[in-house]
């Protein structure tokens, strides 16, 4: 294996391995870079742009940009967090997200990120799109109102499950997550245990009969903000109370 090298993120020197993206190097070093479409078990995608950092002064997506020796990365700055808030607000207004009665509330990465970045109400106008729901499958349902087009299910089904149940159709604001069948999820080879179901960061693809399993207070992000598990790995960091385990 070739040799590790260092780069700096927000002034702190971080060690990286060849082949790592900035995001992976940061994760390993216990530095949290906000992200939504990235997932540790899936190929980088570069769609949500929440992980945008400045690399030597220029904007780059941390998940798709390889870490290189001596790189100067800015991450946790007021300017970047302002852009991130705007992006997350865009995702909220683009779909139909009603956290108060969503089964994913408390375990939702979009919601958790909004809390972490201190969003209370979006500045953007709500778009109220017309989107469809598919409850035809015995184990899984898909609610496109909550989809943020992160493509995790597409990659998981294709690369992990080996099925290619999901993909995108349409363009621009008409882009939708779609399925490898005429219209019913039940007509695809999807199974409840598929990786594609597990990786959805929001409440768009959910297993039936599993809603509200954890009471308020014991949900994923009830005590520690999203990213706390990564930050706990930082040398000298105070131990996180709960977080993702």
């Amino acid at each position, binding site marked *: 294996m070739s040799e590790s090298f260092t780069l700096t993120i927000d002034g702190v020197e971080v060690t990286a391995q060849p082949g790592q993206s900035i995001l992976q190097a940061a994760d390993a070093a216990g530095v949290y870079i906000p992200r939504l479409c990235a997932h540790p078990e899936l190929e*980088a*995608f*570069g*769609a*949500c*742009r*929440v992980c*945008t950092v400045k690399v030597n002064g220029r*904007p780059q*997506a941390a998940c*798709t*940009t*390889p870490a290189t020796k001596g790189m100067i990365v800015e991450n946790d700055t007021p300017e970047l967090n*302002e*852009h991130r808030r*705007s*992006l997350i607000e*865009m*995702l909220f*207004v*683009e779909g139909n997200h009603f956290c108060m009665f969503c089964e994913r509330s408390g375990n939702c990465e979009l919601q958790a990120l909004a809390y972490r970045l201190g969003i209370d109400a979006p*500045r*953007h*106008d709500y*778009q109220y799109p017309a989107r469809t729901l598919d409850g035809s499958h015995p184990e899984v349902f898909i609610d496109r109102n909550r989809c*943020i*087009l992160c493509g995790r299910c597409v990659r998981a089904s294709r690369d992990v499950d080996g099925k*290619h149940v*999901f*993909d*995108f*159709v*349409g*363009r*621009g*604001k*008409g*882009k939708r997550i*779609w*399925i*490898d*069948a*005429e219209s019913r999820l039940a007509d695809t080879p999807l199974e409840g245990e598929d990786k594609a179901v597990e990786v959805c960061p929001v409440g768009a693809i959910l297993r039936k009969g599993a809603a509200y399993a954890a009471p308020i207070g014991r949900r994923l992000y009830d005590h520690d903000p999203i990213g706390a598990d990564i930050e706990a790995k930082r040398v000298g960091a105070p131990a996180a109370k709960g977080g993702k385990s």
Partner: protein
Amino acid sequence: MSELATGVREICDRSGGDRARMMDIVQEVQARFGCVSGEALNLIAAATGVHRVEVEGVVSFYTFLSGRPKGRMVIRVCDDIVDEMSGMRPVAEAFSQELGIPFGGTTPDGQFSLEYTACIGLSDQAPAALINDVPVTYLSSDKAREIVAALRRHGDPRKLVHRLGDGNNAHPLVRSMVHNSIRSKGPIVFAPFEDGSALRKAIAMSPVEVIRDIKTSRLRGRGGAGFPTGMKWEFVRAAEGEPKYVFCNADEGEPGTFKDRVILTEYSGLLFEGMTIAGYAMGAQLGILYLRGEYAYLRLLLEHFLDERRRRGLLGRNILGRAGFDFDIRIQMGAGAYVCGEETSLISSCEGRRGDPKNRPPFPAQRGYLGKPTAVNNVETFCCVARILDQSPGWFAQIGSRQSAGTKLFSVSGDVASPGVYEYPFGVRLRQVLEEVGAESPIAVQIGGPSGQMVGPADFDRTICYDDLATGGSMIVFGPERDPVYIAKRFLDFFAHESCGYCTPCRVGTELMRKKLAAILDGRGEADDLPYLEDLARTVKFTSRCGLGQTAPNPVLSTLKNFRDAFERRCPARQEGRRAAFDLAAATAEAESIVLEQAAR
């Protein structure tokens, strides 16, 4: 087997069941069966070994492809701002009335569909439309009515062409009413050229020497980004991986740009020669010309000239008798997607996928088409290459300005006396161009199309070159009665429509900007909207994944900067915490009347 099944099988077999030829397959299926139906999706998926949803993803991406049946004749009215300024609205109205359908509709007899489409590269002869592949120009509402009547009679769009255009527009393989409108010729592109002359000089040198010549000439890309061509070729040549590919970007989708149309019509020899030289220099054997769907009417002509070159030993095996120098060119048709002009989207499209841009790195020079090193260059860039080899790099480098060598074609349209294509040396002053094209007291000029910048009279003494006013060639002139806010809104309509939708900022942000501008035009603007729009535009520019989203906010930012009054007038400060446009009396009238009614009882 059904007719559809046999037909799809035949079409897929002809492409060897190769998924990379998906664009050809779906376009052929549509041409033959009117659309790519659900059943066709299944059949194509089975024949090419891909998933149905992937085929559906492709079909639903491109404007010219459809999953539902359309009319036998599809009338696509160009809804570009220049067409609108030239009287497109009454034309559209006439089409709609005469056909008895709204835009987006199809006549009950299945004969006609009526749609709007983004700039079709005919802003110099606006208003214009495409009827299937046939361009119709200089439309008026009377002409629109005549066209519908004639099509009802004979049902053949090609029979609408009575007077042929100039030059190759009148060629038997084109027979189009389009005009070249070449207004001024320069020494590089619009100059006589003898096929083979540059190529002969190229193969007298080593490939490395050819690249050195391109570097010495200081040629930079003409497609907009201005990347040094010699350097790009050096990267591709040095990159690991075989085979290597040469791509010509003839997607020309930037509204108000049409100079590549003229090159393709009249100077394809120069272009093909440049591509062949590129093949020699980089050791590539295949070149692909990605031709936008709107220019399908030029396809047979281009195929004919390619055949001609093959016959004359300028393409194919052992070119010009040089053993082992093999290079050929094939045409890949686009299907109505501006984003496919972005080089990595263009590659995705050629691979038979949705026209999504790819993540960079790796860059196309390292890993492009099918994962192999690929050089993508603009039509005009290849023409410059051929001329550099034919003349000399020194000759080329002394034309133009210090940082920007050579000439540039400008596509000039809008409020001018002589719209058309002009070849100017780089470094020319905008004021001089405006005078020569007959722009009368312009208030604004859009340089480089919507993705460029909107400048006002204060900038008219600036020069056009890479380090002052950079441009891919579009120049839209706006006269005194035009409204910068409205123009910005129309450009954002375009970007929102053309966003591929892959990344959040561009997919959502262009739509938000568009709607905010619409609200301001509608009298619902307020002072807070301006800083809001600026913040939003900056986020979209800063965080977008490709050049489309990174430049889509430019109309907003540059009009806010250069024409701020036009916004401020419409965005008054709040009064007593309320929007100026908010009519308190009207909003509470109903409630008050109820109260009064109750009180009166």
